[in-house]
């Protein structure tokens, strides 16, 4: 008896061998990993790279990269008031989101500060999925008081794979998902898989042709195998965050708590951001019914409440400006670079920066970035000219072309 209890306790102590969660695809990713470079993504062990970041980036832009997005938080929101509820939570007009469509959106606290951004999937008149970076169950539940909605956390139950790159459509067709070529950007469809159903949406985080495949936890490995055997001759390659990050910077997509601080995480009162301050003003629909933070956002717009602006920069030279301070005329501090890379696609040194108004809004010229380049034990301080340029840095026709060209 005592021995039973002891072994039961022993079994529970195993958690120490696996301090991080593993996604349902982990056995495959682990097996493919040569570099063994991992990082922690929302408590999950996730690859920074599997082989070589350059090669993975090349796959994303030239064939098909596969990135495991299972750690994304997923919430199923359903019920008679689901549309009204989400329209109240989101700054974007959810009534305009069609069935089997997806849109990018963000949501704010009472003070108009962005809590998080994400993609909203609409499966039916009363059924949605919100996919985002930070945990939102509590916020959604609080906001749902008075609405007839059901909010279900399905982060673990639903696994996701992003297939991105020019051959991604061909890979899916080879895998037998015919009809996928007809999907327009931000459209989704259901396909049979092993007696069950999976969802494929034409969405992604690379600004390229690409799809996201959503499957139940149990079907994860079988879908992985199905895709990889179908894609063997089309350059399918598992990629880590390093390569994906390059693509998303080229597409000028922002990452919460990287390019802006989410309202629930900031400690200092001036660090939270209005949608307008992080380039998301286009999402806000003041004409729709009241939504959370509306009054604060509109007051900020009317008064002098907007203090920052997100811009794209082109920096001279080829040294990435990630984390650099932005100066106006080399004297006045104007902001900070939140992400910067040398873009192989654009052949330009690009950066996303958050500037303090009037820099970036009224004053748009004469910027410099101060880059500290660490070279063999010594910082080289570089003052590089930076120019505000339009975003995205890389715009690909194939992102939207339907049906996609066959590569």
């Amino acid at each position, binding site marked *: 008896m005592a021995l039973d209890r002891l072994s039961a306790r022993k079994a529970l102590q195993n958690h120490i061998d696996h301090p991080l969660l593993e996604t349902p695809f982990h056995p495959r990713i682990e097996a493919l990993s040569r570099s063994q470079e991992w990082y922690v993504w929302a408590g999950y062990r996730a690859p920074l790279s599997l082989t070589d970041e350059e090669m993975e980036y090349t796959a994303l832009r030239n064939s098909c990269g596969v990135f495991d997005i299972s750690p994304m938080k997923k919430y199923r929101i359903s019920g008679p008031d689901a549309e009204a509820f989400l329209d109240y939570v989101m700054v974007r007009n959810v009534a305009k989101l069609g069935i089997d469509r997806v849109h990018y959106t963000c949501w704010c606290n009472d003070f108009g500060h962005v809590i998080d951004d994400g993609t909203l999937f609409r499966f039916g008149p009363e059924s949605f999925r919100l996919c985002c970076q930070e945990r939102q169950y509590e916020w959604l539940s609080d906001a749902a*008081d008075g609405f007839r909605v059901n909010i279900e956390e399905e982060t673990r139950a639903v696994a996701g794979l992003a297939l991105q790159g020019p051959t991604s459509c061909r890979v899916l067709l080879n895998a037998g998902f015919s009809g996928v070529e007809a999907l327009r950007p931000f459209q989704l469809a259901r396909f049979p898989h092993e007696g069950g159903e999976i969802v494929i949406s034409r969405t992604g985080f690379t600004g390229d042709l690409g799809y996201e495949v959503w499957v139940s936890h149990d079907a994860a490995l079988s879908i992985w195998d199905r895709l990889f055997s179908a894609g063997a001759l089309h350059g399918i390659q598992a990629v880590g965050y390093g390569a994906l990050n390059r693509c998303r910077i080229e597409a000028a997509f922002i990452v919460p708590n990287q390019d802006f601080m989410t309202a629930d995480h900031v400690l200092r009162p001036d660090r939270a951001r209005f949608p307008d301050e992080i380039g998301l003003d286009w999402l806000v629909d003041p004409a729709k019914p009241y939504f959370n933070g509306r009054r604060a956002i509109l007051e900020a717009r009317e008064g002098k409440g907007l203090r920052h602006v997100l811009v794209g920069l082109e920096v001279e030279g080829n040294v990435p400006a990630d984390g650099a301070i932005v100066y106006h005329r080399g004297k006045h501090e104007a902001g900070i670079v939140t992400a910067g890379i040398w873009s192989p696609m654009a052949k330009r040194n690009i950066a996303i920066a958050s500037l303090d108004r009037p820099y970036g809004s009224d004053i748009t010229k004469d910027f410099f970035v101060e880059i500290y380049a660490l070279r063999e034990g010594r910082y080289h301080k570089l003052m590089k000219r930076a120019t505000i340029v339009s975003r995205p840095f890389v715009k690909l026709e194939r992102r939207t072309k339907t049906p996609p060209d066959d590569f």
Partner: protein
Amino acid sequence: MTSCDAIVIGGGHNGLTAAALLAASGRKTILLEASAHLGGAARTEEIAPGFRASGPAHLVNRLDPSVIRALKLDTACLSGKALPTAILDLAWGPALVRGAYGEVVEGVTPEEARAFAALREKLFFQASLLKRFLARTPPRLGKTSLGDMKDFALAGLSLISQGREEARDMLRMLLMNVADIADEYLSDDRLKALLAFDATLGIHLGPRSPTSLLGLYYRLTGETNGLPGAQYLPRGGIGSLARAFEDAARRAGAGLRTEAPVTRILSRQGRAEGVELAGGERISAPLIVAAIHPKAAFLSLAAPGEMDAGFRKQIRNIRSRGNVAKLDLALREMPRFTGVKPEDHEARIVIARNIRHVEEAFNPAKYGAYSPDPVMEITLPSLSDPSLAPQGAATLSALVQYAPYELKEGWETGKPAFLKIILDCLDRHAPGLSSTVIAARLLTPPDIEAEYRMPGGHWHHGELQVDQLLINRPVDRASSYATPMEGLYLASAGAHPGGGLSGLPGLLAARHILSGGR
């Protein structure tokens, strides 16, 4: 759809006050009351054939002079003299606290009377400083006005004027518990019990709970007929004062509608536009004044999608669970309380033996049980207004503490058991009283909630404790009567300064609106 300039929801005395002032400013004002009678908790209703009783408000002790002036309120019903308080004690006989909260104390030793006088003077001085902040819109953090600064400065000056020691002592006492202060100054258990009772009546605290002294300060900031701390039973009962408020609103030209329960506040894009009544009738107005519990206004009437979620969560978290039961008895004859002189039966009669009695009465309330040995204050309304009872008969009104909103055993069985406990207690102090009962109405907090539409059955519309006062009453973003919904204002006891028959929330809300936000 009918339209007007302003709609006041709720016909309690605060709603009537706000309606009177808005109407007097020339705005076409309609007041909507859900029940058949105006006056809210102060209205008087029949409890048995020939017997009438008031709601939870059964005494006047803080009717604000500025409200009387602004409304030209007819206060003839308060022209009598201030009522004494008799604290009963079967062994020692009652102690009598006369005049304005004990200008004269009888039934105690001369030393004790002097000690009480000293404490009384100190408490009144401190309360007078706090009073300044109750009589105006609370300051807004980050938007402190010149007027706020003036008040801070004047409060500071008056504090210093009494000498450094007094200033220091006030800062020491402000957040203390009433029991420690009573023990420090007094030795007579009856007087200590009175302070303990008055500090905690209607508040979910025991006398030994930290900050319980604030309740007593609040009580002492009240004044009636120019006498701070005085208490009155209006001639004609509390209802006659309610009628005075009603008359003032009528005189000012406000339209008063009863049996007109509002079911929804209509709004568009976060701006209030009107109300919908139970029958489906809609009335539009650019200005809606909710003289009702904040939870009722923001959670029940405003659409959930029309106010920010964080704000709504704050409102949900307002502590507002009543602790007090209201008992009304129809009696065959006037009761006689042991040791109390016949002419002193007009007093407020307090049954609380000592601090420990009040504290031990509180203990079960923390765990969802009523006090097996409750404390209470009693008035005999028909003494001052014979019309409330048939010839020779009498009414008794009592506020009995503690009766938790959420009773673990349920009020269905709890209510008769609690009533028996109260009647037994009354019999001990007025032998034979229970045998003269013709009818009894015991309103538990859930009854008060249903009857007077006060969520939680709390007459302050939210605990009157330090975290729900001033700039945090009811919550920070609605503390200056304006609310996050444009065009919607709060004017009830749930707003600053709080509950009781003062009229101040209604007055200050109306002034805030009329001044265009100061």
